[in-house]
């Protein structure tokens, strides 16, 4: 039996040798018939296409509003719903060799539960950027106009993003990545030289207006709002270098009015899936409470000689702002960012206790509740965290469950009281031109917590986008 079986076994084994190649050829069966054709030729105006992004978006939002508060916010309650249609455009246009112009704008048409229709509040133009760019010498650049100058390597909070203050005019999404998209640039002159191994940038933004009060919820229709971005002389010097060990450090020196700040950014990839990064800014200034009250008095929102509703040291001292974190990408196309944020000038645990104590002791006294809520509105306007310690986790999943579905979510946690802001977004790319999406967010926490004390408890947004 063994002798009869031997030739048969040998034959099977020999047949198995070419079978390896036959198996390889089975991979060809995975190629769909339609993929037998080469992709269509690229449009001759592809270069022009890459220089612009224009889209029309319809977004319908509904809010759930809290009925009871530890510290009632002054003013009318927030809206219940909003319907918005907006046209968003960013266009780069070359004028000549080494010379170009960039324009970025969003035009909104809105209807909102708390705004009469029709009224001036139903239309608004967000004039974000318009600047000339010139390359007089190779890799030396000059730019003049309204420019959105961004710095920082972190995802949830950027201490070195010095031009972020007062720049955000739209909070359709609370995602920091989205907030960076629709913000106003600053009128400035920017120079930059890029050399092998590093670059140096200098920006000067002149003071053209006096500091203005914080804007109400309904913004002016066609006001470029330069008072938000050009109320102080501002200078930024920024240098970066490509060093060994792929550290890519960036150093910043920033001066605004009477305040000078230093900053730094550092990042490094570790292995195939992880990037570590750290961002720091430091300078001498007062606490968030004192800065906010000073600004309120200076701009006439708060009475000039009104006493502070909260105890605190009005003197300036060296304050640090830090964002340190890591990103991790999985084989399944999910990218996580986990960060710790330290904002030394922000509320300590004692400041929070004082804030709620002052507010609950005089819940209906506008002269107390007004300044208390002004401090928090000021922090939001400055894009600074209110609390001193916070954690941020963001996840982005490309082709989640099914192709063309992208899920994004983040949670921003106040480490003092555990309250948090949570947002989940789903975008489904129906085609190259159409996207449909939904977004839900919630402020979670007890009544005497940072996020649990906010008037808006949750919201749901549905959107349809057409790209051109």
């Amino acid at each position, binding site marked *: 039996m063994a002798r009869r079986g031997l030739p048969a076994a040998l034959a099977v084994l020999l047949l198995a040798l070419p079978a390896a190649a036959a198996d*390889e050829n089975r991979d060809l069966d995975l190629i769909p018939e339609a993929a037998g054709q080469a992709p269509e030729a690229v449009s001759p105006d592809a270069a022009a296409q890459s220089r612009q992004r224009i889209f029309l978006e319809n977004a319908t939002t509904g809010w759930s509003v809290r009925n009871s508060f530890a510290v009632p916010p002054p003013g009318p309650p927030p809206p219940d719903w909003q319907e918005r249609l907006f046209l968003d455009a960013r266009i780069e246009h070359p004028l000549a060799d080494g010379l170009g112009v960039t324009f970025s704008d969003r035009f909104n048409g809105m209807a909102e539960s708390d705004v009469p229709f029709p009224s001036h509040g139903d239309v608004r133009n967000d004039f974000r950027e318009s600047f000339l760019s010139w390359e007089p010498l190779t890799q030396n650049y000059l730019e003049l106009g309204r420019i959105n*100058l961004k710095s920082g390597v972190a995802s949830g909070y950027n201490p070195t993003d010095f031009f972020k203050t007062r720049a955000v005019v739209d909070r359709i999404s609370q995602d920091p990545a989205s907030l960076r998209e629709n913000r106003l640039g600053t009128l400035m002159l920017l120079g930059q030289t*890029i050399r092998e191994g590093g670059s140096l940038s200098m920006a000067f933004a002149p003071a053209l207006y006096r500091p203005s009060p914080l804007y109400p919820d309904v913004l002016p229709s066609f006001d470029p709002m330069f008072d938000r971005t050009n109320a102080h002389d501002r200078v930024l010097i920024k240098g*970066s270098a490509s060093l060994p060990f*792929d550290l890519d450090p960036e150093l910043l020196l920033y001066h605004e009015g009477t305040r000078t700040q230093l900053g730094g950014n550092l990042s490094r990839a570790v292995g195939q899936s*992880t990037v570590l990064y750290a961002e720091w800014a430091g300078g001498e200034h007062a606490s968030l409470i004192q800065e906010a009250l000073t600004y309120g008095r200076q701009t006439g929102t708060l009475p000039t000689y009104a006493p502070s509703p909260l105890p605190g040291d009005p003197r300036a001292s060296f304050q640090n702002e830090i964002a340190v974190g890591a990103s991790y990408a999985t084989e399944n196309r999910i*990218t996580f960012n986990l960060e710790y944020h330290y904002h030394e000038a922000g509320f300590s645990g004692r400041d929070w206790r004082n804030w709620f104590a002052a507010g609950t002791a005089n819940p209906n006294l506008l002269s107390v509740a007004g300044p208390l809520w002004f401090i928090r509105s000021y922090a939001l306007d400055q894009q600074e965290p209110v609390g001193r310690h916070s954690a941020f986790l963001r996840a982005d999943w490309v082709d989640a469950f099914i192709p063309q579905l992208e899920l994004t979510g983040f949670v921003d946690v106040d480490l003092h009281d555990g309250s948090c802001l949570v947002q989940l977004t789903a975008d489904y790319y129906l085609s190259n031109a159409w996207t449909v999406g939904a977004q839900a967010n919630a402020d979670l926490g007890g009544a005497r917590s940072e996020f649990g004390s906010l008037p808006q408890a949750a919201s749901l947004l549905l959107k349809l986008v057409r790209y051109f």
Partner: protein
Amino acid sequence: MSEAVPRLARRLAVLLALVLACGQATAQAQTAQEILAASDRIRNPHEPFRLTSSLVEFVGGKPRGQSVLFVYAKEDPTTHRFRNLVRYVEPPRDAGKMALLDNHVLWFYDPASKASVRISPQQRLIGQASIGDILTVNLAADYTGTLAGTETIQDAARQDKLCWHLDMAAATDLATYFRVEYWVEQKTSFPIKAKFYSDSGRLLKILYYRGFSEQLGVIRPTEAVIIDAVDTALVTTLKFSDYKFQEIPEAWFQRDYLPRLRAD
């Protein structure tokens, strides 16, 4: 029975030695690294160049969206690895986005937010930039190849091709994939097929080269079909066009240059 197995093994060993000797007789002239290097020279020019790549993604056999990228590539004279700058043209929602892919220094720039984000090599595999990167990688620089044998396999046009079958392991931590199987036509050094694996041994992508035509003085593959081995319903076709030699200064390969990368 107990004696039959060793005898079978001995006979089989002799037969295998004969079969493999046919291939190895030719292979002695070319080592696996030389075969890799020859194939790398076919796939990519030695001088800095740019091209346009068009990608169509198929889901369940139906086309779903097209992407177009401008790719600028330059070989590092020291490491012989390609460094890429990628500018997105399509889809319209991604127009103007840019990526710097320089070994471990990987940055992504979005002109809408003006933000530069550092990404990991694994993130390079997310999205279309990864595919452009696959096709300009110099395999000989990142992988150590061993000759697995000689095989006749069908190319993308289902034509039989006598190929070297190379089994390549990542030689540095800069290699995107842990292991690559690679088939190179013996007669021409044309790349025919590749299979890319993760460090867990998972097959991630299967790639077929096709559309061989003369570009920048050499006959090169100008098309590729990439099968997502994790979800085989996903297939991407890719076409390279508008090959041009282009001077690419070293200063371009840093984060701060990304916003300056023009679409000419």
